């Protein structure tokens, strides 16, 4: 049995009904975890001596608007000893876009969670410093949400170049 299958088996044994599904796609495994159980699952993956997932490789989110559950917070954990990646996915509803922070287990989750908050508006309970990371501090809105506009500028072609030039604000001095 590969370490990945072993890991899934142990997680199932420990958390059973808190793991709605295990997705296999292109040879990669993603365990779907209930919102309330993510901290316990990460703790198990980190501390259980049989599992050894010691590196949090990535923490991000996907917005499925207008479908529900709207957000999926995705975690990628790596085990140095067994050389394997495991993915975790926490589906969140738009009305309750909040999940526990895993900063106490993996300290580098700090900035990753700040970035997810900045880009998606998902809050992390128990985070030490949840502020915007990439956007200016007084920015309104969460850019990577699907209902946030791209914010592009109209392209100037010959037929509308002059009109756009008139409207555009150029610096005079």
């Amino acid at each position, binding site marked *: 049995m590969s370490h990945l299958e072993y890991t899934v088996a142990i997680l199932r044994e420990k958390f059973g009904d808190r793991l709605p599904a295990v997705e296999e*796609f292109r040879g990669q495994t993603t365990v779907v975890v209930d919102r309330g159980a993510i901290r316990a699952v990460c703790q198990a993956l980190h501390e259980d001596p049989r599992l050894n997932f010691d590196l*949090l490789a990535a923490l991000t989110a996907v917005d499925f608007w207008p479908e529900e559950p709207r957000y999926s917070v995705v975690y990628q954990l790596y085990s140095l000893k067994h050389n394997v990646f495991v993915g975790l996915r926490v589906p969140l509803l738009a009305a309750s876009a909040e999940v526990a922070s895993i900063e106490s287990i993996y300290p580098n989750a700090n900035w990753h969670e700040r970035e997810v908050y900045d880009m998606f508006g998902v809050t992390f309970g128990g985070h030490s410093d949840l502020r915007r990371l990439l956007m200016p501090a007084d920015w309104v809105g969460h850019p990577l949400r699907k209902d946030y506009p791209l914010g592009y500028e109209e392209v100037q072609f010959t037929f509308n170049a002059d009109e756009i030039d008139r409207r555009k604000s150029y610096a005079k001095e």
Partner: protein
Amino acid sequence: MNPSRQMEVTVDELKHLVSPRALTGDTMLLNMGPQHPSTHGVLRLLLELDGETIITCIPDIGFLHTGIEKNMEVKTYTQALVMTDRMDYLNNLGNNLTYCLAVEKLVELDVPPRAQAVRVLLTELQRITSHLVWLATHALDLAAMSVFLYCFREREQILDIFEMVSGQRMMTSYFRPGGLWRELPAGFEDAVRQFLKGFPRRVAQYESLLTKNPLFIDRTRQIGVISAEDALRWGLTGPMLRGSGIGLDFRKAQPYSGYEQYEFDVPTGTHGDTYDRYLVRMAELYQSVRICQQVLDRLPAGPVQSANRKFVPPPRSELGHSMEAVIHHFKLWTEGFPAPKGAVYVATESPRGELGCYLVGDGGPKPYRVHFRSPSLAHLQVLPLLSKGHFVADLVGIIGSADIVLGDADR
């Protein structure tokens, strides 16, 4: 509204991050602003200083945030590739490779062996250019200015090779899903061989300038020390982690694009300080040359693109006499190819560390969500830990040894 309001921050807002002495005015809060010669890009650091000693440093990033991830969602997979060059702008081909691997994994597209070998070769050359810029700027910050000029001279040779291959010095976009953009030109092999012949001697020259230099050692030994367990807990990868003794290299651990065929070592350090990270990167330069030699000696013949016309456009010569070629060409260039619903994560070894691409497809021709796990973001996070108790002048050396590229961190 005063447009520079966002830049002014009161101690109240940062109360939770600074020590209590800052609130009484005992220590000083200094802004090492986004425009600074030694911050290697637009990085803003708020330093809490007790005299010259740093109590804590609070990085403020986002000054180069380009919205690449959102912008890629409105382009087709091939169009979005162009944006990946511009993220980590010292590792353009590496970014291309990571993204192409993710797309190929998602749609299950094969890549012919010749294309894989050329990808390895060019990625290693790109690694050399990235390390050369690192060395140039790191040494420049520590007042060794001649190294800057020498490194850029070597870099020009490699940029000439890139230009020969793709027409562009930096933003090549040479790797495409399915292989390469086009066949290698004549004269490529000679140019690379000539470069590889002369390069190890040059690296030895740089080492003779810096490695045993007492001034350099004084400025880098015991500076920015991080232990192996701390490094792993904070998500460091690449030379930052290897400098502390853990030999994790994704080219060996999770080989991609045929890396398993080539022999190379993974250098590690012991103390986890700036000097060890310098030694690790210098050793990596030699290893990259070794890999390039092996690739060039065994370069397989064959096509450079997958034959799967559903994803790779046909060559223009075919369009004259094949109707299917015209239809594929039309469909690919107007609509693009569809990817199935699902998500993949691909991790590669960039010169900075682990560069990962999380790609979500939705059945359409445009990526639904692309996220790049950038090593520079993880390394910036650990800056307060590394710089605690050091002088401001040492901070400059620490930022240099972290080898951050703000385009990578901010995307």
